[in-house]
């Protein structure tokens, strides 16, 4: 927004709040579209994506609880939704998101403790998290369907 001295303006554009004189020579890296997508990158962004999905799911969880606390009719509406095709697809998505975020979250906690940083281990744990999340999702969902109809 503010006008720069012409001499300074010829240099690189300032980052907001800093004048060019205070710029450190930080290394620049190419942006996302330059890289191919290794599995570790996919599992990283999936952690954030499933976190967002679960946050949305938490809104539906509160709806379910508040409906149950409100009236028989409100609870019937909620149960109808969760039993509908759309509701079941949502539940399946939240179920996988939950197990993925859980497994990958544990992977993050292991990293926080200082373990598992080397490349081979990082790839292995990516594969392990994906496999575990799919297996746990199928087990939980099939168990839920059996409870419902059994």
């Amino acid at each position, binding site marked *: 927004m503010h006008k720069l001295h012409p001499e300074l303006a010829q240099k690189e554009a300032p980052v907001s709040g800093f004048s060019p004189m205070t710029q450190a020579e930080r290394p620049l890296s190419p942006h996302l579209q330059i890289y191919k997508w290794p599995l570790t990158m996919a599992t990283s962004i999936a952690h954030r994506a499933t976190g967002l999905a679960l946050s949305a799911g938490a809104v539906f969880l509160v709806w379910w*609880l508040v409906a149950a606390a409100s009236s028989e009719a409100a609870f019937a509406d909620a149960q109808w939704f969760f039993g509908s095709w759309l509701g079941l697809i949502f539940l399946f998505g939240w179920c996988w998101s939950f197990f993925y975020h859980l497994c990958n979250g544990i992977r993050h906690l292991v990293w926080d403790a200082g373990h598992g940083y080397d490349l081979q281990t990082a790839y292995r744990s990516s594969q392990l998290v994906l496999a575990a999340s799919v297996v746990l999702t199928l087990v939980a969902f099939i168990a839920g369907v059996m409870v419902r109809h059994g």
Partner: protein
Amino acid sequence: MSEKQLRSPLGRALGLGSAKEGVAHWWAQRVSAVALVPLGIWFCASLVSLAGADRLTLMAWLHGPVAAVLMILTLGALFYHASLGLQVVIEDYAPGEGTKLVGIVFVKLLALLLAVAGIFAVLKLAFGG
């Protein structure tokens, strides 16, 4: 001093790091994550066992102190953890400081509202609908 300097001259002179509350946020996110590991597994198993349950079954389940207390803890930890996570997402992607501030305040207040609504619903069901 052959190494490339990563900090700005001002940053080096002040030596105060980023001046934000990264460590407290980081810890809170980890602690709530650790709490949510057992709570989440318990909650998921409970939902499976309650699949297709009617309202009376749900109320009977929440009448027990264990289920009601764990459900309240789950809601608290869940919305706390979610608000911390969503805060980082907003901080990463918000185009300007104004949007960032409004977004974070909105998310935090909404998380509080939903947590209180959920906990109230659990208490109402636990103490008899």
